[in-house]
């Protein structure tokens, strides 16, 4: 082979081809050329059953006269002691394998299939150690056929050089759910174009010219999956002009329908998808966690899972972790079942009572506390899986060095490394490296944001991997492994609590993998270091100091102020950053107006020098609430800030009583906009019936129709959340907000300096009968 056929570059895309096996697109290291390469890729799957059934299948396959090779082999099923005799069906291409499997699963449904529905990217990665955006060295013929391929880096490196991807951004000028967009905005190579949709032919010709001239690697669209690609297709058909959306000639767009499914009692909506060939299409509104980790996180998700970038962008972290497990299985020669058939072993009701407990929660001590340290186990559940070798095939097995799971009558095999810990180990190591690097890094460092995005992608994968042990469709899941992890988790947290108490700390709260502790005189990082070391020593699990709060407020339940609520708190770290959990500002169904005001209240509290001076901020908060309420009443709040966004939990016909979200969805249904469960509907609360106005109706509502009282009440609740720990009673707050009462407090409640400056409403705490009621 001549040296001109040796290529160096980054792997952009991979997909099957009926004739050529597998197609790879490589971005040359010069950043300019893109290479289309192909390679024959014979693909096998395996079938297990009784001898008679397999013989029948063999005869049937022979009778089809297809180019397949059949052989009896032995392969390892993860849950079997001995290798399993199976029929290997080897097809010439991945496309042929997929077609044949679809045919057989309906013709021979009683047989057990393995390695039958694995994405090509994973099969290829298992054989070649490639992954998306991997740097590769390829030897190829003049016709582009790959003769040899070598991967030059690994997904576990943290400082890979940036890939010079050419990105074209396409965005309609408004949300198509609301009204028909007028213009298409295009950003490319620092330039900005505006194409009116009414000039249909012109838009297509100009867009085609840009695609041909620049040949972008990535189309980053807004509303692309849901609307834009479909719209462009309609225009293409109407004007008989073809846009080269895919880089591969002759391959259009791969479409997938929208769908919804149930997960942990929640309805999850997945929008329609439009995937391209040879060019990457990422549609921001349909990209999982795009708001959290952006493009860099999507790339990282693809790198570590080995899924195509377009796939990694659209699948849940659960599918991501499942893909990683499949890859590990393929590399270890373990069969990947089509369906999970592994069932729970029968256990007594007593054992179930012991095992089915979840994480340990120690209710917080309600109220304000100062100088509190939060200590967290680093990725606790994944660390447990890795450290204690918890995997579906290792639980319930003793072995020579088997270990007992605390509380449970269960042992774990320590003689053989489990598939799940093997999968998690490099991911955990990379996450810890990134966390360590980020800990001492200046946020202005160019690596800071990419590291944060990568770390966030890892976090979601690691969070999900525990749930996947017990997930019904996880191919390598087992409920006993899930229970073992939580049992180890409870034990570790108890040991941490004992360690803290032995060293003289007071434990204020514990929540699954974290502790909040306090000690007289302890306020610096070094004061908590001995505790961290003691916990590491007693548990064997990595632990870190999340931070030290200047003060933290643990909240009570709304109906009963004596009852604490776990994981509902807000606190100010010594470095001035907030940590907030379970309150309105964190909720998806809180309007931006309420969120912003709650944040403003928190920021006012942050001005207090210490917890003892927080009440001095009450006059400013009172003024803030009055000002914001006045703006609401005077219709000065933009309607978009009042939007409520809620998920539909069922189809409209299934609602017995229509919720506000369902009423808004019914309004959209009337104008032909159909929503399915799991989708969000945005609406405003309005006066009279039906009490809501769907935001995605074509007309904007009359600002005068807004239900001011409803929003005022929502604000009151959010304000009470913040003020309750300061001793403000709900009725007092209502007077402050809804009557003309000035700011006041009972004698002795405020420091003298503060009380003297503020005029008090004398009868505030003995309500006058003439106070008007709040009408909601």
């Amino acid at each position, binding site marked *: 082979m001549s040296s001109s056929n040796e290529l160096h570059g980054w792997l952009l895309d991979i997909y099957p081809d009926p004739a050529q096996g597998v197609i790879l697109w490589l971005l040359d290291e010069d950043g300019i050329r893109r290479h289309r390469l192909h390679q024959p890729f014979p693909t096998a799957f395996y079938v297990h059953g009784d001898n008679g059934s397999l013989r029948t299948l063999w005869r049937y396959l022979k009778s089809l006269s297809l180019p397949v090779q059949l052989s009896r082999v032995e392969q390892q099923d993860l849950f079997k002691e001995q290798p399993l005799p199976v029929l290997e069906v080897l097809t010439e291409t991945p496309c042929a394998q997929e077609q044949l499997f679809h045919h057989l699963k309906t013709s021979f*449904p009683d047989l057990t299939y393995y390695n039958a529905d694995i994405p090509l990217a994973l099969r290829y990665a298992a054989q070649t150690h490639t992954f998306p955006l991997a740097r590769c060295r390829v030897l190829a013929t003049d016709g582009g056929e790959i003769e040899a391929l070598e991967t030059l880096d690994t997904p576990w490196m943290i400082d890979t050089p940036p890939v010079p991807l050419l990105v074209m951004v396409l965005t309609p000028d408004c949300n198509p759910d609301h009204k028909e967009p007028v213009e298409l905005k295009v950003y490319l190579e620092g330039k900005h174009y505006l194409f009116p949709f009414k000039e249909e032919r012109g838009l297509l010709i100009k867009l085609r010219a840009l695609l041909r001239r620049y040949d972008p690697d990535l189309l980053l669209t807004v509303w692309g999956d849901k609307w834009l690609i479909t719209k462009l297709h309609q225009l293409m058909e109407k004007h008989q002009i073809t846009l080269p959306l895919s880089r591969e000639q002759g391959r259009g767009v791969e479409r997938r329908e929208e769908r919804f499914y149930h997960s942990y009692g929640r309805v999850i909506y997945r929008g329609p998808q439009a995937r391209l060939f040879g060019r990457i299409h990422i549609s921001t509104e349909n990209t999982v966690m795009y708001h959290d980790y952006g493009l860099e996180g999507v790339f990282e998700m693809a790198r570590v899972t080995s899924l195509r970038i377009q796939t990694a962008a659209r699948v849940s972290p659960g599918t991501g972790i499942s893909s990683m497990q499949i890859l590990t299985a393929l590399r270890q020669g373990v069969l990947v079942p089509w369906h999970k058939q592994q*069932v*729970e072993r029968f256990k*007594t*009701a007593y054992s179930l009572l012991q095992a089915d407990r979840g994480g340990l929660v120690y209710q917080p001590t309600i109220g304000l506390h100062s100088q509190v340290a939060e200590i967290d186990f680093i990725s606790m559940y994944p660390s447990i899986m890795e450290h204690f070798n918890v995997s579906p095939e290792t639980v319930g097995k003793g072995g020579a060095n088997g270990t007992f799971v605390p509380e449970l009558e269960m042992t774990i095999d320590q003689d053989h490394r489990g598939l799940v810990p093997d999968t998690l180990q490099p991911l955990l190591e990379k996450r810890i490296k990134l966390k360590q690097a980020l800990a001492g890094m200046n946020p202005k460092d160019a690596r800071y944001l990419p590291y944060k995005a990568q770390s966030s992608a890892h976090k979601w994968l690691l969070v999900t991997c525990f749930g996947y042990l017990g997930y*019904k469709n996880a191919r390598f899941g087992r409920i006993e492994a899930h229970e073992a992890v939580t049992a180890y988790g409870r034990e570790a947290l108890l040991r941490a609590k004992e360690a803290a108490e032995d060293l003289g700390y007071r434990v204020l709260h514990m929540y699954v993998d974290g502790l909040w502790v306090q000690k007289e005189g302890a306020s610096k990082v070094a004061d908590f270091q001995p505790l961290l070391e003691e916990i590491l020593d007693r548990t064997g699990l990595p632990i870190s100091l999340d931070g030290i709060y200047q003060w933290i407020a643990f909240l009570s339940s709304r109906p009963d102020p004596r009852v604490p609520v776990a994981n509902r708190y807000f606190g100010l770290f010594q470095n001035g950053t907030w940590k907030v959990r379970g309150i309105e500002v964190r909720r998806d169904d809180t309007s931006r107006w309420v969120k912003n005001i709650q944040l403003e209240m928190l920021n006012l509290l942050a001005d207090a020098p210490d917890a003892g001076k927080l009440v001095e901020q009450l006059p400013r908060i009172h003024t803030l609430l009055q000002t914001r309420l006045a703006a609401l009443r005077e219709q000065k709040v933009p309607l978009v800030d009042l939007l409520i966004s809620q998920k539909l939990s069922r189809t409209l016909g299934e609602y017995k009583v229509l919720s506000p979200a369902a009423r808004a969805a019914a309004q959209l249904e009337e104008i032909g906009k159909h929503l399915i469960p799991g989708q969000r509907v945005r609406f405003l609360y309005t006066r009279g019936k039906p009490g809501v106005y769907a935001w995605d109706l074509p007309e904007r509502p009359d600002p005068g129709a807004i239900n001011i009282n409803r929003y005022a009440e929502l604000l009151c609740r959010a304000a009470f959340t913040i003020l309750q720990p300061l001793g403000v009673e709900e009725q007092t707050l209502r007077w402050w907000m809804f009557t003309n009462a000035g700011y006041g407090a009972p004698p002795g409640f405020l420091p003298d300096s503060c009380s003297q400056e503020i005029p008090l409403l004398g009868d505030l705490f003995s309500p006058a009968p003439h106070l008007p009621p709040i009408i909601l």
Partner: protein
Amino acid sequence: MELIPVPHSPTLQLLVAPSSFQRKAAITFIAELAQTGPVRVLDGGNRLDILSLNRELRRKDLLLYTALEHVQVARAFTCYQMTTLLEQPAPGGIPTLVLNLLTTFQDENAPLLERLRLLETSLYHLQKNARHSPVLLIVHPQPTEEPFLARIRETADRVWVFEPHHPAIQFSLF
């Protein structure tokens, strides 16, 4: 609930009831059976409230630990898992309660034909088990589950259907 006999003889019985009644019935039956000996529970979709069972057994003033040890539970989350569980024969004479069988057949990942095929396999094994052990299915059907329920009704030896009590309307005299 007192009208429905606790399953002791080898038959395949079906109880169709709304979810609130069904939960109560399941706990009552399991507690009754656990008083006298082992009972097997196949829990579809993880709906068995083990804490309620614990309370019910304590109320019966039994040796709690012994009674809890009498109850053998396995949970199935998919129709594939339920079918695999049902393939395991019940030890002779031990009653089996199958809770929320249909929940596991509402799996959006399995095509309808596949689910119906698995249901047939499940029913075959249920009948086989019912030849030597009592088997009680307790279901709370959703409207979409009607084809599945109809097939189970055909197979069961005895069917109990909970009908809500509608008080008679008393007409006013004037």
